[in-house]
């Protein structure tokens, strides 16, 4: 049933300090709204149980992409459209651009934000696998101060995050890598546009003298959180890719992911596709 909109409070403060003050004074009362592409869907479906929201749309300090020497810093309210069109992100962080291009439609990409995607904490979100591969960190701010935390480990369970009730996610930073990593991103959904992922994978590897010296593998829609396949990564470090190695990696991956049956797919299909995508990524490293 459709929501009764007069029952929802939504305010749009024009300064960050105002937002942080409200979060500090009444922790848990206010939920933040970024692009609204998920919250407004819940509203229409009558499933938005929280009633008081703060829009961060007017906070300009949360927007924009800034390239420093060691990091590229992406404001939490940066949209998918802005991400995919940014030249430095295109050349150094192509997986994030691919994820941005494959999220929803152009209309969704014009509204959906990177910070919103993280805090919405869907295990099927498309940009988090790329963020994990790039060793991203997120900046949390509150009236108590600001802190950077590694994105890996930020989600602790389904829709659970290491974030206090008075905190706001202000920015995401991506360390710029000196060496050339080979990169891979693939999303499998019902169709190319608009679909929510059945399985999504991002991978990056540094191959030196024919062997993998470092590797990152991250997947969406195969566990309660978007996850790094740390065991699979460990088993591949220092190894040269052969068919035997790929077969073993498929086995390790099966042990560390935990896909489920739901409306979008089945556990069995997700497992098989995740293994196939891993194989596709690893096969490309030998080229």
């Amino acid at each position: 049933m459709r929501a009764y909109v007069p029952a929802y409070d939504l305010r749009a403060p024009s300064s960050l300090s105002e937002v942080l003050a409200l979060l500090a004074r009444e922790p848990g009362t206010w939920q933040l709204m970024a692009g609204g592409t998920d919250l407004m869907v819940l509203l229409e479906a009558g499933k938005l149980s929280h009633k008081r929201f703060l829009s961060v749309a007017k906070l300009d300090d949360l927007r924009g992409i800034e390239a420093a020497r060691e990091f590229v810093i992406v404001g939490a309210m940066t949209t998918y459209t802005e991400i995919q069109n940014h030249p430095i992100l295109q050349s150094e962080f192509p997986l994030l651009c691919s994820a941005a291009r494959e999220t929803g439609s152009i209309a969704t990409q014009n509204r959906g934000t990177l910070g919103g995607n993280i805090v919405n904490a869907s295990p099927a979100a498309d940009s988090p696998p790329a963020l994990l591969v790039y060793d991203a960190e997120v900046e949390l701010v509150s009236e108590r101060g600001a802190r950077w935390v590694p994105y890996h480990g930020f989600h602790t369970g389904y829709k659970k995050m290491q974030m206090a009730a008075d905190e706001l996610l202000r920015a995401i930073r991506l360390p710029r890598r000196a060496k050339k990593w080979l990169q891979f991103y693939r999303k499998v959904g019902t169709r190319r546009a608009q679909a929510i992922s059945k399985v999504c994978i991002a991978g990056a590897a540094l191959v030196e003298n024919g062997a993998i010296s470092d590797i990152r593998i991250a997947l969406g829609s195969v566990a309660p959180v978007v996850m790094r396949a740390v065991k699979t990564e460990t088993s591949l470090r220092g190894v040269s890719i052969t068919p035997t190695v790929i077969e073993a990696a498929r086995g390790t991956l099966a042990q560390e992911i935990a896909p489920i049956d739901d409306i979008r797919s089945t556990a069995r299909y997700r497992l098989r596709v995740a293994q196939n995508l891993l194989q596709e990524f690893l096969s490309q490293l030998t080229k």
Partner: protein
Amino acid sequence: MSELVSRIHIQCRVNGEPRHAETFPMARLLDVLREELRLTGTKEGCGEGECGACSILLNGAIVNSCLIPAIEADGADIRTIEGIASGDQLNAVQKAFLECGGAQCGICTPGMVIAATALLERHPHPNDAEIREGLAGNLCRCTGYQKIFAAVVRACELSTEKKPVSR
């Protein structure tokens, strides 16, 4: 159900004209346009950002108006399907849709025209893949899409034809 908030006053430009409305901050912009401003050209399809029937241009960018809370329309520049033609003069996309039979039942058509117009504003000469991508957020259950695709190709020709030759 209890009311938590009172109506707010929002002011914006819609199709070049200053407009205002008294509405709830979480009301969908789609409903404000249709019910408060009586601009019923914008349609509701799915109500969950999947079908594109409610597409409008918000500050120049295509968005689904069913996913925009009214408070964000305050101060915004909005273009709806009613603002695509200049008076009686249809734009190239609208002419091409007529010429190519790009509409059947018509529910998706305003959104398709907005999406195609937004595409041609970004890429005046899109390739086939760009046209498909530009329309990917808009669903049509009648045409099978071929005539809509053909209409966008035709719209590119029409907008090129009317341009002055020398530059």
